[in-house]
């Protein structure tokens, strides 16, 4: 089962919404969840697979209580981006609510009620900004109407602010809560009669708004995946197949059962050589009264594994084969003009091979989930999942039960980065709870997390670039090869999908007359998944370091060179040139074309803010790169230096970003600060390696992520003012940072970087 991912398939555009009053039956159902008061439901209408209008009803709830509390449902998962705060904030601002009186409730996973809840692909803001505004505007319209009736004044003189309806000229004001009864008598206004506030009228949107959960977090009260207990629960720690596809020949549980606190050992069947994205690996679960006993019990298990076909998988060997394959003709993915003719035309050519390793997500919270299988054959789950609906569907499938009997509550996520979209760990808890008819909490260890992740693929790329006699770049031939995400489920999927190719490879935006982009075959020997910005990571690394190399050869400033390569202001759709589809992150290309003018603007901005020319003249060592991903335009300048003992330091990072309307500026900056640090790890330190089918890194000593002394010292994010549709910022900071750092390091050390991670090669 492939989830609805924006880079796999076209996303259903959610651009229509209808606000309505729930009927009595629905009202009672909702009231039982979030209390009484005035309730508003929001339908988000979506185009279905055949273009028909589908209505999800109702999609979000807003409740105004007589005590003036406004309750807003957050239906997206919070993993650190701030989305649980930011979307309700949009509704509250449009409504004119008093933000301090707003309560946020987390939705359970339910497609029929909430529509899309897959918190992935940096598209929450992009898809739900407008519907949230309209929901707020509807309630505001009704509040004004109710107050005008109460005062017998004209509605046009009424507005909302700080949780009150205010009549400016008469000076009257009334709190929202006092209008609840009147609101319940009103009907929903026509869509056409709604007026949205202008951007300048907002008091929260476009500002720095702190996250809703901040005090809970700083006081240790916030609840993550492993923080809930149920009476009678058992804790499960699972020994999983060391090699993907391995199966248990036999096992002996006696010694495990002797560990005090261990109650039983249960086998979980795997799904074979291509285990899929939502199924558990084969394993033995040790159930115990507490976590420590389960861990000790697992150590005492004796298992005879049939390691299966992947027993001799060496990632280093596959890397060499992938590199060799890029010398051959591959599958054509985009073509413009003829690179062959251009190659024959003479002039200087550049040809480089780039390699990048497997990466693990390594969220500091390892996967964990609590499942409670009940006597009536229903099951209730609490899990830190990015995709509660997929978790729900996967549990229903694994337990062979109707999906209506599965409830998935979403806790806070201790980091996600794509890992916690996959519900394998949720299914494990569900299977075990059903097996013992008691609540079970599955706890992964760090070793489990690093050994059994859905990894970012290792990759090889070869780029050949051809200049003509005058130094103009006339041909670009990009070969890319990496085990595709689809290969995790399907042995036949040996090439990256159109979606993965569209992540920074086939959407090459530069004004080059001859372009040829090819992919090559690579088999998945492990579970491959998606990690923060996905294939953009390795594609941007190769493209942006190559351009820097050509600029240097042509004695051009790299910033000027990239600006000139972007050419005239153009809106690109790549229409005639793609040899497959171009999903464009799930959006219509007409609405979100590749806009070179927007990219040039962020490049100019970052160069100005970083003082690019002055800094270089002062002897600072700076690198530059620009990359658009997830419809967000980003340019980045990284400064590097060496300290007295020759250690690399990153004194300063500047980002400029055009993400359309900036919604929560503080959370935009925090995503860029975090993105730079995440990317520093990928560039310098992190790598997962397979030997004999097994991951050889066990914990944070082997799989290294940066620590505070290695982090960039100052990170500045310059946000472009815009009235374009807002786009996400979770992933886009990562791709350009890595090549910007590599380009700076080249200036420092005089050596080009063709392989990640680069720490070993630095000294």
């Amino acid at each position: 089962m492939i989830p609805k991912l924006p880079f796999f398939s076209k996303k259903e555009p959610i651009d229509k919404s209808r606000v309505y009053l729930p009927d009595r039956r629905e009202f009672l159902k909702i009231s039982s969840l979030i209390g009484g008061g005035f309730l508003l439901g929001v339908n988000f209408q979506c185009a279905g697979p055949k273009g028909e209008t589908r209505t999800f009803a109702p999609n979000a709830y807003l409740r105004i209580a007589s005590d003036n509390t406004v309750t807003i449902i957050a239906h997206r998962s919070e993993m650190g981006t701030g989305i649980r705060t930011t979307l309700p904030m949009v509704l509250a601002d449009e409504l004119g609510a008093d933000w301090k009186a707003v309560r946020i409730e987390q939705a359970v996973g339910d497609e029929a009620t909430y529509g899309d809840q897959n918190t992935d692909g940096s598209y929450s803001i992009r898809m739900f900004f407008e519907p949230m505004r309209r929901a707020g505007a509807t309630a505001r319209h009704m509040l004004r109407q109710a107050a005008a009736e109460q005062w017998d004044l004209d509605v046009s003189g009424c507005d909302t602010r700080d949780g009150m309806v205010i009549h400016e000229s008469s000076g009257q004001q009334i709190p929202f809560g006092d209008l609840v009864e009147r609101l319940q008598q009103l009907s929903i206004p026509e869509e056409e009669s709604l007026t949205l506030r202008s951007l300048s009228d907002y008091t929260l949107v476009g500002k720095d708004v702190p996250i809703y959960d901040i005090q809970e977090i700083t006081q240790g009260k916030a609840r993550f995946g492993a923080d809930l207990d149920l009476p009678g629960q058992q804790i499960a720690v699972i020994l999983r197949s060391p090699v993907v596809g391995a199966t248990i020949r036999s096992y002996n549980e006696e010694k495990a059962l002797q560990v005090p606190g261990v109650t039983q050992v249960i086998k979980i069947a795997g799904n074979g050589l291509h285990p899929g994205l939502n199924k558990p690996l084969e394993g033995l679960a040790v159930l115990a009264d507490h976590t420590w006993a389960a861990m000790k019990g697992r150590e005492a298990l004796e298992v005879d594994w049939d390691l299966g076909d992947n027993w001799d998988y060496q990632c280093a060997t596959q890397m060499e084969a992938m590199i060799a394959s890029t010398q051959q003709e591959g599958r054509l993915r985009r073509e413009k003009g003829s690179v062959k003719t251009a190659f024959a035309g003479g002039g200087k050519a550049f040809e480089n091979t780039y390699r990048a390793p497997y990466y693990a997500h390594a969220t500091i919270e390892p996967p964990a989930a609590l499942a409670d299988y009940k006597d009536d054959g229903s099951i209730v789950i609490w899990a830190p999942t990015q995709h509660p609906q997929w978790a729900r569907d996967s549990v229903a499938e694994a337990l062979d039960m109707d999906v209506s009997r599965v409830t998935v509550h979403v806790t806070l996520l201790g980091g996600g980065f794509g890992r916690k979209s996959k519900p394998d760990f949720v299914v494990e808890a569900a299977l075990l709870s059903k097996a013992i008819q008691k609540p079970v909490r599955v706890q992964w260890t760090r070793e489990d997390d690093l050994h059994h992740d859905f990894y970012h693929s290792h990759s090889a790329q070869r780029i050949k670039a051809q200049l003509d006699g005058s130094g103009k770049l006339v041909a670009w031939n990009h070969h890319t090869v990496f085990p595709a995400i689809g290969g995790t489920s399907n042995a036949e999927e040996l090439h990256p999908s159109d979606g993965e190719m569209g992540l920074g490879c086939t959407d090459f935006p530069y004004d080059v007359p001859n372009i040829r982009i090819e992919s090559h075959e690579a088999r998945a020997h492990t579970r491959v998944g998606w990690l923060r910005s996905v294939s953009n990571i390795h594609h941007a690394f190769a493209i942006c370091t190559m351009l820097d190399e050509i600029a240097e050869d042509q004695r051009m400033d790299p910033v000027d060179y990239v600006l000139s390569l972007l050419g005239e202001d153009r809106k690109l759709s790549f229409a005639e040139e793609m040899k497959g589809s171009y999903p464009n992150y799930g959006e219509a290309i007409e609405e979100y074309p590749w806009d070179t003018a927007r990219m040039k603007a962020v490049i100019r901005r970052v160069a100005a803010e970083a003082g690019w020319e002055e800094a270089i003249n002062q002897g600072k060592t700076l690198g530059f790169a620009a990359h658009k991903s997830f419809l967000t335009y980003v340019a980045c300048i990284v400064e590097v230096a060496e300290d007295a003992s020759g250690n690399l330091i990153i004194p300063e990072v500047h980002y400029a970003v055009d993400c359309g309307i900036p919604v929560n500026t503080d959370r935009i900056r925090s995503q860029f600060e975090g993105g730079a640090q995440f990317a520093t790890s990928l560039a310098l330190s992190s790598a997962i390696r397979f030997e004999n089918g097994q991951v050889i890194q066990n914990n944070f000593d082997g799989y290294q992520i940066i620590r505070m002394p290695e982090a960039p010292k100052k990170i500045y994010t310059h946000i472009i003012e815009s009235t374009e549709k807002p786009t996400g910022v979770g992933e886009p900071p990562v791709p350009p940072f890595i090549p910007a750092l590599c380009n700076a390091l080249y200036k420092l050390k005089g050596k080009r970087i063709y392989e990640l991670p680069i720490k070993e090669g630095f000294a």
Partner: protein
Amino acid sequence: MEKYRLSVNGKMQEVTAPADMPLLWVIRDLLSLKGTKFGCGQALCGACTVHVDGVATRSCSLPVSAVGDRAVTTIEGLSPTGDHPLQQAWEAHVVPQCGYCQSGQLMNAAALLAENPRPSESEIEAAMAGNLCRCGTYNRIKDAILTASSQS
């Protein structure tokens, strides 16, 4: 299984546990204090940091039998009202992203300030190097520690 009497957040608690059970699991599983987090089990990430007689300690690697009569403080006991200068500074700088590592970061920072009330930036970096954050809040953590230290 042995019986242990532990002082946790100023309260004496009796628990029955195997001698090798790490303090982390005593705190989380037996005392149901969930603010202290599990991250690596090997004292490599700092998510489980608590104070043992005021010293920042990785509770995942300290067996319950080794605690003795030393006073254990968890994030829940850092300040009775949740307004320790560091908690206030964390709020002012909106430090957390996902928030998972922040209990450990705060406990480690509190031990640092107790020992060195005016740390330099490089002293902060060195003292906080054992606490991993995957979201990338290191800059704000450093800024928040500097803010709290300037106010004490």
